[in-house]
């Protein structure tokens, strides 16, 4: 994935794993395992990402400045201080929005072609 780009469209399309990681982080900052959990919940268990895929995606997203490590730590008594928390950057939000618009356009086209019904 390229370095920070002024044009979010240039990073599209996103892989499903990357898109769901961005969606998970749209709720707020999370550590790695919480992201894995959230992705599984968002997809009703259809997409389960393991630690390898997760941190591979995180390393690329950090390099592309779509997400960043959070400096704020939760209460150490509530959490393992070795965990790292990640959050969406403004650029990451705009890339996720652009991907959502792309998918919406795709669904509109599919509906226009009557591949799916309006209420499906």
């Amino acid at each position, binding site marked *: 994935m390229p370095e920070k780009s002024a044009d979010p469209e240039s990073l599209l399309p996103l892989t499903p794993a990357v898109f769901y990681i961005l969606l998970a982080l749209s709720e707020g900052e999370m550590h*790695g*395992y919480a992201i*894995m959990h959230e992705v599984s919940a968002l997809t009703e268990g259809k997409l*389960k*990402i*393991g*630690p*390898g*895929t*997760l*941190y*591979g995606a*995180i*390393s690329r997203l950090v390099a592309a400045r779509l997400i960043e490590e959070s400096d704020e730590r939760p209460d150490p008594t509530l959490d*393992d201080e*070795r*965990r*790292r928390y990640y959050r969406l950057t403004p650029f990451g939000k705009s890339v996720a929005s652009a991907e959502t618009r792309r998918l919406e356009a795709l669904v509109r086209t599919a509906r226009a072609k009557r591949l799916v019904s309006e209420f499906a």
Partner: protein
Amino acid sequence: MTSSQRIYRILVHFYPKAYREEYGALMEQAFRDLERDQQKADAAFGWLRLWLCVLPDAGASIVSMQVTHIGGRLMFMVNSQNLQFRRIIWGILAAAVILLGILFKTLLLREQGAVQLALLVSVGSCIAAVLLFGMMGRLGGWYIGAAMVVVLSLYVPLLWSDDPYRWLRQNPLTGWTVILLGFMYLTNPSRTAVLLAAGGLAAVNIFTSLLVSGL
């Protein structure tokens, strides 16, 4: 530490070093969390569900990270301003192509006696190597054309030989090393690249030819 955690720690060692140093501990942490939850959900077969999820994930991501890492390093070296170093890299790549050609040719001859196919492999890998040598910097179209003439002149006569298999057996170098040295001379790569590639190829070619001869 559980057995699964020990095995996962070993798997983490297969990731590129820089990546492992940055994310290895976090991956192990996520693995421990996953293991704990799988055990809670299914005490009897939680470990199996854990590995069914983790093993394909680790395998795919190790390959992906290594390919990215090696590709990145190779491109860095190739794009490096250090011309000598760039020549060594392209020389090694070309030598590797020829090496594969030799091994494949040998297997074809030894296992199937498929002389024509072996010949095709020989010529194909030689042409591919010539093109790679062309990336070394000073090799223009004229040299590539000349290289192809040399390659064909060495191998096409085999088509009309009464016993090309025997010809190949009795000529352990089979022109490979001559071609390699000739083009390295023309392209003027570093002395190290010439010695490494030529020495290695000569040794492998002699060895594989001895194998073909059944010695």
